[in-house]
């Protein structure tokens, strides 16, 4: 077991892979945070914008599609990450381990 650990951790491809995946996680985290805090800062500093009607004579305000949009965006973001992690990343992962166990 220790052999395998040494071989995998010494493999530059492993470090590269971990770095790539970490970068991707951080970018996705930032996207999620920007969407939420962007919305909250709009609420804090520009209430009028969110209360603006979506069209002349309409009751619905821009805040409704934006708010629901934040929810939908959060869900989509999660699935995009999970698809890539469960597909591409897991394949690379399995390959690296298999290489080290040879």
């Amino acid at each position, binding site marked *: 077991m220790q052999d395998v650990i040494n071989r995998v951790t010494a493999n530059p491809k492993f470090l590269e892979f971990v770095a790539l995946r970490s970068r991707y996680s951080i970018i996705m985290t930032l996207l999620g945070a920007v969407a939420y805090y962007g919305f909250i800062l709009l609420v*804090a500093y520009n209430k009028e914008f969110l209360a603006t009607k979506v069209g002349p004579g309409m009751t619905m305000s821009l805040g409704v599609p934006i708010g629901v949009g934040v929810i939908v965006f959060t869900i989509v973001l999660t699935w995009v990450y999970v698809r890539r992690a469960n597909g591409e990343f897991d394949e690379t992962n399995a390959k690296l381990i298999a290489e080290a166990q040879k």
Partner: protein
Amino acid sequence: MTIKHILAAAAALVAVGGAWAAGADLGQAQKQATNWTAIAMFAIFVGATLWITKWAAGKTKTAADFYTAGGGITGFQNGLAIAGDYMSAASFLGISGLVFANGFDGLIFSIGWLVGWPIITFLMAERLRNLGKFTFADVAAYRFAQTPVRTFAAISTLVVVAFYMIAQMVGAGQLIKILFGMDYVYAVILVGVIMMMYVLFGGMTATTWVQIIKAVMLLGGATFMAVAVLLQFGFSPEALFTKAVEVHSKKDAIMGPGALIKDPISAISVGMALMFGTAGLPHILMRFFTVPNAKEARKSVAWATTWIGYFYILTFIIGFGAIVNLIPNPADYYVGGELAKGLKGGGNMAAVHLSGAVGGNLFLGFISAVAFATILAVVAGLTLSGASAVSHDLYASVWRKGKVDSATELKWSKGATLALGLLAMALGIAFEKENVAYMVMLAFTIACSGNFPVLFMSVLWKDCTTRGVVVGGTVGLILATVLTIGSASVWEAVLQNPKGTAWFPYNSAAIFSMTAAFFTIWLVSILDNSAQAKKERALYPAQQLRSETGLGASGASGH
């Protein structure tokens, strides 16, 4: 606009401010007439879930079965169970009640409760699954000295569980008065006893299935209500909003942000507590050990996020549905038939009254039973995670140094369940008349200031040490508690100090306590030059390999 309207609006604004700081809260309630339909529906739910518990009991033979259902839950099932843990009665009744009272502000509030999920997905889920076995302390203590880290994690778990639990038990007592027309103390005993049966006999298997059934019932019931409301308006949200603005006393103000966010620091701080606190809740974290591998762990959060997000969209529609269905008929839904006196049973009953309006008495009984079952299921999950902290972390790991057989550990977990169940009932009765509105938010603040930084740094930072996480986590836990006590929602509302004397000016401590925890972990770790610290740093590559690749992670049944 009359004076009465202005007063009502002012009262509602205060209520919203409090709710934002507190988490949706069920408050004090008046006892209503006995509702036999609701009681019968609830009895059916309990009967069915106890039957499942009997089945689960046959599968709960080892400590691993008790903690993680043998690791055999699929990602989809676990996603529903996580969503069930998260969609409490307070979020269903409280958020729809908030939308009913203030419109758009309710949506702002609910979004905050969703944004923690991507953080768990992107940063925690697979690493937790790869490193852990039964509790999040397994992960935090992976390469560290077991005794101090596990002791801290267990204490922090129990504190979070206790605050979350008191809020649930008191909520159950208040709800039973209005939903079933029964006395407070019955609710506490009922919830305590049934919940203990689930956990004692069926362990994680029963707790998970109770959660799944409840989640499906809640999502199904809420979907029916939202569709029924939209059907009244030919599926045109615009028509729904137009009618709501026409009948609501606040008119067009319900379509834009109101007084929910007062100062940006509080808003960001509450956001941090919700965003990172979710990733530190012990009863949520332990669900990641019930799935066989990292792939399923990721799938479970994606499903959980989907269901929770969908649920919040439904509560928004339900809130507006209540506006257009209840306000035009004060005789049926308001105290004394007068709008000024408020909804029968209080503002949180908006969704319950709406269920009667769109689905008749039988459906009202169903929704009431679901709301109560929700509390029951959440309390079961909390008890299980508290019991695991006692039996796995404190007893088996700290006291017996891991030298204990599965049967003895299982006995201890059952003993701990019994003790925690009795404690929950005692606390529920003790806090009946207390204001517990701040407790869920306090649980989130402690989770994001104690548990989350400890987990995050131990898994992702190679120079982190035992001393760093224990000192930093403790600083976070204490600061979160002390600052919350100093904020208006506790200092003035609970401790009865005069208005304006709260010495902590913001709604949430998270921005300060979480930052302090991270900073302390960093500082204490880099100053730590002990031999133990060197050993721990040397262990990082092996931990990183396992957390990133799953190499050597516990298998599905072989835990």
